[in-house]
């Protein structure tokens, strides 16, 4: 097990680095704060599968594994578990992936077409389910995910259309729905965080309703409230999402996402 817990060495390009380090790195972009906020979701998770959906969460999960969470498992997006350099280390076809889900050794970060104050999430359809105004993905694995392993969410464009008072179709189960459904639902249910382009949210309130946990630098509380269709709990002092280290910025920009897929999801 030693290999799996040892930090991965930085990739070598073979050539010595040119001496161009004197100019300071460009300051972090909004997308890069989002990457950091997503990466932090997997801190101290142990040896579990990180299942990121979306570009920013994918960069975040890979950053976490290359830095503070080297024991995480990641897939190639298909059926293989792969190391940081893409070398296969295990087989995870859908049928086994579903066992990973129900076995609980996984933390997924899903998207959300709608999410409410208790973390109920909808990716199925908009409007009346019988005859939807807009058919979306369907519930997919959201019901099994939310009842079996930690589920966080990523919303690249925070708006009142996404953060709603009540979702049209509960795909991912929220805290109030789980409590109402009883111990079978609450036993392994946990929503660690919701990351958006504006900030980070959690459910660390007495009734498990959404709370603003941190703002990305440059964002105000007023901006968040105006873009949210319900009133989240706002602490007296709201911290900012932490700064990336210089090493993290280099990893994001040079190694993990040199093509800038993160900027397409969260424009600067």
């Amino acid at each position: 097990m030693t290999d799996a817990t040892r930090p991965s060495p930085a990739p070598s390009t073979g050539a010595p680095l040119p001496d161009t380090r004197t100019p300071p790195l460009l300051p972090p972009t909004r997308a890069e704060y989002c990457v950091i906020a997503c990466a932090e979701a997997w801190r101290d998770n142990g040896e579990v599968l990180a299942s990121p959906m979306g570009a920013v969460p994918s960069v975040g999960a890979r950053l976490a594994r290359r830095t503070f969470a080297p024991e995480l498992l990641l897939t190639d997006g298909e059926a293989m578990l792969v190391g940081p350099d893409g070398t296969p280390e295990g087989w995870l076809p859908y049928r086994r992936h579903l066992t990973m889900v129900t076995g609980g050794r996984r933390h997924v970060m899903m998207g959300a077409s709608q999410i409410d104050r208790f973390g109920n999430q909808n990716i199925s359809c908009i409007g009346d389910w019988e005859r939807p105004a807009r058919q979306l993905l369907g519930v997919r694995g959201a019901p099994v995910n939310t009842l079996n392993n930690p589920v966080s969410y990523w919303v690249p464009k925070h708006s009142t259309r996404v953060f709603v008072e009540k979702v049209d179709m509960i795909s991912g189960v929220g805290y109030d729905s789980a409590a109402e459904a009883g111990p079978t639902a609450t036993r392994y249910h946990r929503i660690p965080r919701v990351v958006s382009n504006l900030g980070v949210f959690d459910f660390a309130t007495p009734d498990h309703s959404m709370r603003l946990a941190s703002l990305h630098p440059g964002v105000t509380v007023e901006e968040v409230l105006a873009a949210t269709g319900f009133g989240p709990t706002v602490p007296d002092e709201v911290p900012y999402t932490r700064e990336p280290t210089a090493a993290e910025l280099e990893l994001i920009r040079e190694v993990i996402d040199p093509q800038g897929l993160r900027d397409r999801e969260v424009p600067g």
Partner: protein
Amino acid sequence: MSDKTMTADEVVSRLRSGMTLGIGGWGSRRKPMALVRALLRSQVTDLTIVSYGGPDVGMLAAAGRIRKLVAAFVTLDSIPLEPHYRAARQSGAFELTEVDEAMFMWGLHAAANRLPFMPVRAGIGSDVMRVNPGLRTVTSPYEDTATGIRETFVAMPALRMDAALVHVNRADRSGNGQYLGPDPYFDDLFCEAADNAYVSCERLVDRFDDVVPQTLLVNRHSVTGVVETPGGAHPTSCVPDHDRDEPFQKLYATTPWPEFTERFLYGDEKAYQSAAQTWHEERR
């Protein structure tokens, strides 16, 4: 050993309107599209389709052949939302049993094991229970040793099918099927959960030489017919034989259905493959 080889049209001649059909693969991956195209050439309709849905569901929906769909999603993978499926849902064209991906899998297991249901945690607390009022729950006869609680689960009913259609990389004449890509999906379960199963393949082989045993996915006892149909998963992926045909899939997703049918589905499978090839050549 009986020779089970037949043509795609012979497979469809054994299917009837009103049947429950399972379709293997996953999303836009290793779908038995040549068999679906044969279905589109026939008059068979009023179907209940059980599928991890992709363009198979989209095409059958566009052609008005579906009475009821059992699915957790319908997607083209690289194009997340299947346009024909969306249109059908938004016009209320057919009935939907929307379940979770894991519930679906356990429904296949229940059918393959001749059980009426399997208990699953997934579904509890979600609107899957609201939109499927027929779903029942089952309470464990055993108390949890730590909490003393007897948990209540969804009793996912068996997804028993009249026939299953799957596509694999290789098969022999007696119905043994081999997959060569990274994921078997659930094709063996589909075959075992159906009264009859039809396996199409990229290439028919006399025997499996130097075989990696785990690749022999489908066993002949659960197979009724075998069809050799190269490119039979097109435009979905069938690695390592071929990747998904992304440009063609995009064309499919953006072309009005009558226009697409007229250009590509006017004739038999050979005509389809040739029309698709011509389209690619014209793009160069």
